[in-house]
């Protein structure tokens, strides 16, 4: 039996925590949560949420507890990849916000309420957002406001408003602010006109002003009552506010393949065929498509049954990709925003609460197509540094070597003189050969590019 390890991201809630043992993931429910847990089950809330695929499915197991004071041990379905709100595009965060409100509304119908509304309680499963924190519910006390209201505004409404009204890249602020974007910061950053919006005016600006000036009165949480109509009205208002926020992707990269291919159409078709054959040869379960753009090659991996995380640093491309996945009902692709030159770090308590990208790997197979020249020329990365990165994230690698002679590289080099001179095919093979075994190399017909399959030696 392998030792029990608690999951670093789930230590704050006294109701229970996640742990792993023998490669399986479990959730311990503590005795303290007894009443709420029984109410969740007896009221039919869990059944309803699971029937509607809003809550991650789990079963009760008989495994030994990981700590004293256990009520029961649950075994939730394990997801193939954990993503974080700062890696989601606008529509993903919006879908997660609407899910949270839907879950809260259903909880109220069953006499319960969400005690937190963290965006980290949502993951993507089968292309749809799903609530993962089974212990987030508490009995609803009639007349009590929603304890997680402020957290919802900080985790969802504030970043969505900033993305919609300022810049979609501001979603990245969630990486700096683990418990959501402070309301006074959001209020200061949002355009003045948003103060005139009833929804954003009340939930963000007014609340921020209230926070700045309020002083604790006698009575604390017990003071005052909030009618059922007011609570439902507030949830309805939040939903309308979230639905009212929109963003249309416009970027440099999201129309990259649609407008002009970097090589003739025949070469692109040949590349698609070669990549599909190479993926089939690798037989991966989990693929990371690095620099996926709008997912042309991610779809090839998904079509062969692999769960594919499609990373790109361009928010507009990820947004378009996600929308297409939703339209197509694609369940095996998860598009995410990621800057490969500055990947998501470990953050939170002891820098372990939310895992770094590297800690969530390696993938069975990484795709690095039409990517190398951007890293080498655009970011001045030497070949050994690239080798180190790909060796850290993949067991197998399909990589496209794009030489200096390529027209796109010449464009990139037009105003650059400071790139590493050793970027040749021979130097590339030598550098990657130190960490990978080269299984195949295939020139792409109609171009000077070469595709490789590599196997990690370690």
């Amino acid at each position, binding site marked *: 039996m392998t030792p029990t390890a608690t999951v670093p991201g789930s230590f704050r809630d006294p109701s229970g925590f996640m742990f792993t043992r023998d490669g399986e993931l479990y959730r311990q429910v503590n005795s303290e949560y007894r009443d709420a847990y029984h109410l969740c089950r007896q009221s039919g809330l869990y059944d309803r949420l699971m029937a509607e695929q809003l809550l991650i499915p789990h079963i009760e197991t008989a495994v030994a507890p990981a700590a004293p004071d256990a009520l029961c041990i649950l075994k939730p379905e394990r997801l193939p990849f954990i993503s974080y709100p700062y890696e989601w595009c606008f529509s993903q965060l919006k879908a997660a916000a609407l899910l949270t409100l839907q879950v809260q509304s259903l909880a109220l119908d069953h006499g319960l309420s969400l005690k937190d509304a963290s965006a980290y309680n949502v993951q993507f499963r089968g292309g749809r957002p799903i609530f993962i924190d089974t212990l987030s519910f508490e009995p609803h006390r009639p007349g009590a406001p929603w304890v997680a209201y*402020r957290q919802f505004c900080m985790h969802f409404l504030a970043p969505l408003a900033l993305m919609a009204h300022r810049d979609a890249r501001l979603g990245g602020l969630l990486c700096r602010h683990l418990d959501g974007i402070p309301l006074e910061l959001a209020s200061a950053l949002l355009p003045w006109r948003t103060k005139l919006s009833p929804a954003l*005016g009340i939930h963000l600006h007014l609340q921020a002003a209230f926070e700045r*000036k309020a002083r604790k009165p006698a009575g604390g949480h017990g003071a005052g009552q*909030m009618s059922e109509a007011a609570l439902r*009205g507030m949830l*309805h208002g939040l939903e309308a506010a979230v639905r009212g926020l929109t963003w249309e992707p416009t970027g440099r990269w999201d129309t990259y393949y649609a407008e002009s291919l970097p090589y003739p159409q025949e070469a692109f078709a040949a590349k698609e065929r070669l990549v599909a054959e190479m993926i089939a040869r690798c037989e991966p379960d989990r693929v990371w498509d690095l620099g996926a753009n709008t997912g042309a090659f991610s779809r090839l991996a998904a079509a062969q049954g692999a769960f594919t995380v499609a990373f790109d640093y361009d928010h507009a491309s990820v947004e378009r990709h996600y929308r297409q996945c939703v339209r197509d009902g694609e369940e095996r692709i998860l598009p995410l925003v990621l800057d490969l030159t500055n990947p998501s770090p470990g953050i939170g308590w002891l820098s372990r609460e939310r895992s770094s990208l590297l800690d969530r790997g390696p993938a069975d197979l990484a795709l690095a197509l039409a990517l190398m020249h951007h890293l080498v020329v655009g970011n001045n990365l030497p070949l050994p540094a690239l080798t180190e990165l790909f060796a850290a994230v993949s067991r197998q690698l399909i990589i496209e070597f794009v030489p200096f002679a390529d027209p796109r590289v010449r464009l990139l080099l037009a105003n650059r003189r400071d790139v590493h001179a050793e970027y040749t095919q021979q130097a590339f093979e030598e550098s990657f050969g130190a960490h990978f075994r080269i299984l195949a190399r295939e020139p792409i017909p109609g171009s000077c590019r070469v595709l490789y399959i590599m196997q990690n030696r370690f």
Partner: protein
Amino acid sequence: MKFVEATVFTTVALIVALFAGSMTPAHASYIDPGTTSYLFQMAVAGVFGLLYTARQIFRRLATRRMEQETKKTE
């Protein structure tokens, strides 16, 4: 409905702003944010309740009207 919402919002915004403005910001760092959130929800609860009730009444009337029209057609 938009006009009604905006009017109610403006009125309440003024009242709440005045209410918040009269508070002393002393020791703000020691205030539990959860308490502030409770107080804020109480302060604006009237608007949410009013809008929700108005919406429910409007929906009920619309449903009744549709039912009447369906009966007439039959």
